């Protein structure tokens, strides 16, 4: 039988079916995917490209590997050792747009986050430089990189993206990071391998922006040569950009060229099965100069709940899954690990708090707004939460009771001062102390009680509306928080909403408090947990004011803490020295310690379950999964994972 099925554990197959299978189907598999079997293990390790590609080169339908690789390929470190080419990686996804697949195959940015998130490193840009005044940033692209269809990758890609941004008929607009002092950046491409961004004022975040997520390369590095076919000005078949945008969807169009390690070659009509085959032009090599990825293809199924995915793991039909496995399934997965032939790794989720109570700074009702802005009130509520109980009940004691912070591993905290600030931040108002809670709530003007014994606000019954999403643990935690706050006579009403509904209300600042996970590695590009710059978390109205340039939303009071935070953020953008920039972030967190908390954390440092089959080698030793901007596991180089010889060459009966 074919090696890929050797590990399948469906036991009830009738002999007849097996016979039919062997007679009719098995010969059909002697195709490209078994190409590695035509070479020995030693030969495989000596090859500079995958055997399946070598066969195509020999047939003459692919140029030799030297011509496919750039002049200066990205050298990707391997976790244990150089690997064998071949094999299929089976995984699942739960959404139609295959986000976990995009985090693997879609992270091909100009600038990459380092695997340990301690900083950034070159990606498709070989290097970049700032002018002395910080206003001009020049990216130098790797020469000779090619799209998966063989077309050269040049600065034309970025130019095309910018052209679309400036075209009013196209949905893309220049993103916020394209503005400085209200002036739009100038994007020019002096030659095929140079891209220049000229800003009105200094902007030191641009390389970080370029390093975020699969969504940045997906837009900014557009396959112009392919997309122009669907441009309404160049093709009279199209009246607008609708068709072009549809063609641009990487998980709906199998023809879209990519720069990533794997390229989608098949998508079922019901969008529940997708195949990603190795990109023969991928620009990365291992330290010995052998082209990556090692694994030939990825088969991704879409399941309707992650529990089904767990069942696939247990049955041994899953090779590596980095996301979408709930922590509750830990015991179950462990129990069947031997039978399913897989390992369960506990990586960091990266949560500073899961969940955090986000308190709307601009709560609609004026009386409540004044109360919510009183630090005594927020501190009182924080002291009233029994975090250890939440830890025991929801997380079986595996989490850490603490205040809401961003991720501990964030690069802002690397300095001694950073560690000190982080320490104070995560412990601030995080004890369980009902006396102090009661005293603080009394001081906030909530000393009078109503007939049921609950605190009243200005002589009126008082109730907090706590919104939750339909996500794991939210409802349970909300009940525990409600119960905790009942102990200090604060009445809570829990409201569970669909994603769409609550998302829209948060967007319009029409909520009082809601639960969300706090997890972020980089506050320069994703400032919203600390700086009120965005239309989300605890400050949507102020954020709206900031992002719309004062046209909508609520203006901060001059000199108040919101104003100060926004000013620090503006300074951060303009600060050339990285250490000083980190310092400014710490200054902002000190403001939180002075005026906060603005968000109340419960428990943090949860683990993230990762499952890999025993035959999978070079599995990264750890990662931080929840902040998507750093694109784990894509940034951890899944392209250097490989199957050991037993999987690739054994199991041949």
């Amino acid at each position, binding site marked *: 039988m074919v090696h890929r099925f050797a590990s399948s554990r469906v036991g009830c197959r009738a002999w007849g079916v097996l016979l039919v299978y062997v007679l009719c*189907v098995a010969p059909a598999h002697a195709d490209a995917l078994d190409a590695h079997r035509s070479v020995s293990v030693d030969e495989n390790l000596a090859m500079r490209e995958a055997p399946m590609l070598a066969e195509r080169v020999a047939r003459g339908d692919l140029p030799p590997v030297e011509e496919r690789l750039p002049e200066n390929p990205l050298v990707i470190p391997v976790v244990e050792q150089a690997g064998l080419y071949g094999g299929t990686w089976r995984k699942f996804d739960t959404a139609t747009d295959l986000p976990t697949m995009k985090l693997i195959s879609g992270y091909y940015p100009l600038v990459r986050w380092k695997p340990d998130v301690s900083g950034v490193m070159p990606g498709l840009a070989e290097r970049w430089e700032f002018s002395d005044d910080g206003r001009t940033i020049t990216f130098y692209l790797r020469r000779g990189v090619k799209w998966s269809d063989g077309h050269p990758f040049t600065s034309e890609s970025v130019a095309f993206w910018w052209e679309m941004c400036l075209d009013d008929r196209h*949905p*893309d607009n220049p*993103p916020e990071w394209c503005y400085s002092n209200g002036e739009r950046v100038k994007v020019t491409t002096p030659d095929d391998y140079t891209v220049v961004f000229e800003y009105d004022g200094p902007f030191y975040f641009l390389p970080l922006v370029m390093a975020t997520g699969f969504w940045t390369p997906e837009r900014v590095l557009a396959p112009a040569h392919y997309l122009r076919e669907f441009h309404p000005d160049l093709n009279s078949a199209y009246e607008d950009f609708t068709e072009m945008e549809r063609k641009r969807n990487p998980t*709906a169009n199998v023809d879209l060229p990519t720069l990533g390690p794997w390229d989608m070659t098949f998508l079922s*009509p019901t969008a*529940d099965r997708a195949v990603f085959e190795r990109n023969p032009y991928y620009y990365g090599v291992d330290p010995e100069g052998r082209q990556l990825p090692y694994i030939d293809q990825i088969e991704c199924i879409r399941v309707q709940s992650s529990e089904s995915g767990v069942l696939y793991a247990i049955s041994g039909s899953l090779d590596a899954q980095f996301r979408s496995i709930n922590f509750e399934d830990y015991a179950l997965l462990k129990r069947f690990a031997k039978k399913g032939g897989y390992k369960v790794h506990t990586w960091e989720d990266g949560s500073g708090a899961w969940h955090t109570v986000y308190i709307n700074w601009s709560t609609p009702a004026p009386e409540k707004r004044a109360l919510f802005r009183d630090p005594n009130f927020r501190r009182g509520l924080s002291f009233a939460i029994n975090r250890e109980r939440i830890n025991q009940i929801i997380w079986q004691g595996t989490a850490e009771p603490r205040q809401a912070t961003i991720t501990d591993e964030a690069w802002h905290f690397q300095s001694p001062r950073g560690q000190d600030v982080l320490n104070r931040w995560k412990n601030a108002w995080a004890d369980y102390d009902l006396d102090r809670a009661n005293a603080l709530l009394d001081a906030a003007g909530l000393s009078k009680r109503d007939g049921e014994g609950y605190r009243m606000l200005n002589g009126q019954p008082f109730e907090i509306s706590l919104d939750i999403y339909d996500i794991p643990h939210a409802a349970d935690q909300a009940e525990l928080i409600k119960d905790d706050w009942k102990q200090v006579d604060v009445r809570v009403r829990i409201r569970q909403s669909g994603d*769409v509904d609550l998302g829209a209300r948060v967007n319009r600042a029409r909520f009082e408090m809601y639960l969300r996970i706090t997890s972020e590695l980089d506050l320069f590009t994703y400032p919203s947990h600390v700086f009120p710059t965005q*239309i989300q978390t605890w400050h949507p109205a102020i954020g709206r004011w900031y992002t719309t340039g004062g046209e909508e939303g609520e203006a901060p009071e001059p000199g108040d803490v919101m104003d100060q935070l926004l000013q620090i953020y503006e300074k951060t953008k303009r600060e050339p020295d990285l250490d000083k920039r980190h310092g400014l972030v710490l200054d902002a967190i000190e403001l939180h310690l002075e005026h906060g908390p603005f968000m109340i954390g419960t428990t943090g440092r949860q683990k993230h379950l990762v499952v890999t089959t025993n035959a999978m080698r070079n599995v990264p030793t750890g990662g931080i999964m929840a902040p998507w901007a750093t694109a784990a596991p894509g940034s951890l180089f899944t392209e250097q994972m490989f199957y050991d010889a037993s999987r690739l060459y054994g199991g041949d009966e």
Partner: protein
Amino acid sequence: MGSYILRRLMIFVPMLFAVSLVSFVIIQLPPGSYLDQKIVELQAQGGDASSLGQIEALKRRYGLDAPIWKQYLMWIGGILTEGDFGESFAYDKPVNQLVWSFLGFTLLVSGTSFVLVYLLAIPLGCIAAVKKGKPTDHVISGVSFIGMSVPEFMLALLLLVLGLFALDYLFVGLFSPEFYFQPWSWAKVVDLLKHLPVPAAVVAVNGTAGLMRIMRGSMLDVLAEPYILTARAKGLSRRQVFGKHALRMAINPIISIMGMSLPGLLSGSAIIAIVLNLPTAGYLLFESLKTQDMYLAGTLMLMLAALLLVGNLISDIALAIVDPRIRYD
């Protein structure tokens, strides 16, 4: 009879219009829209004003910036003039294509369970009625009560657990994992046929149990009629009494129910589809309502209504054929 069917068919037109209007309004009722979710997503990624601009463009693209009545007219206009049911946001695909691609597996699962329901329920119901008060009746009735009261998703979960712990078998999906990415072949068909009975049976349990109760009750009513007594007094064989005279009368309610259960073919298996991971239209409907993928949801609801109307028509016609007492006025 021809004019009767024609009249019924003509009523379909205003009915379907009304249904399309109501379903469109219902989809709009919950606050927010699919784009609001998109906004949240874009903000989580970019978190800036440009995402809001992008949303405006998306709204224009999908016509969501127009008032609801205009959106409705655009949608219904597209259906009538071009057979265009709009676009699914989540799948980035025309709804027509999407629904068709889900229809095959849906009909396979629901159709199998549909056949199973009637094949089991009618004979079992009759037997229980004939043997009323005897141990056979108690056993059948007991099992049917359990079947009616155990939620189907519970059964599906029990199956999963059983498969996992006892049988070493994965009751998930319609294929064994190794066939997911294979082209159609004889072996894949065999694999499908092996996987089909379990979900079909789970879907069928509730229906069978319920239908069996109805069949039994109806049969008991008929058996109490004087003409049955007459038939027996005349010395007709049991087979003729029950099979010819009683069953023919008792089956009427089953036929009317059959028409009503036609929409269930499309939407019935939603929860089981989630538990057992089946690519069926029931799940598609659930998903589209959850994400407010409104043209997809609207189209599916329209299809359900159409199936209900057609099902009722079919059962009326069938009743008229089976029962000569029914007239067409």
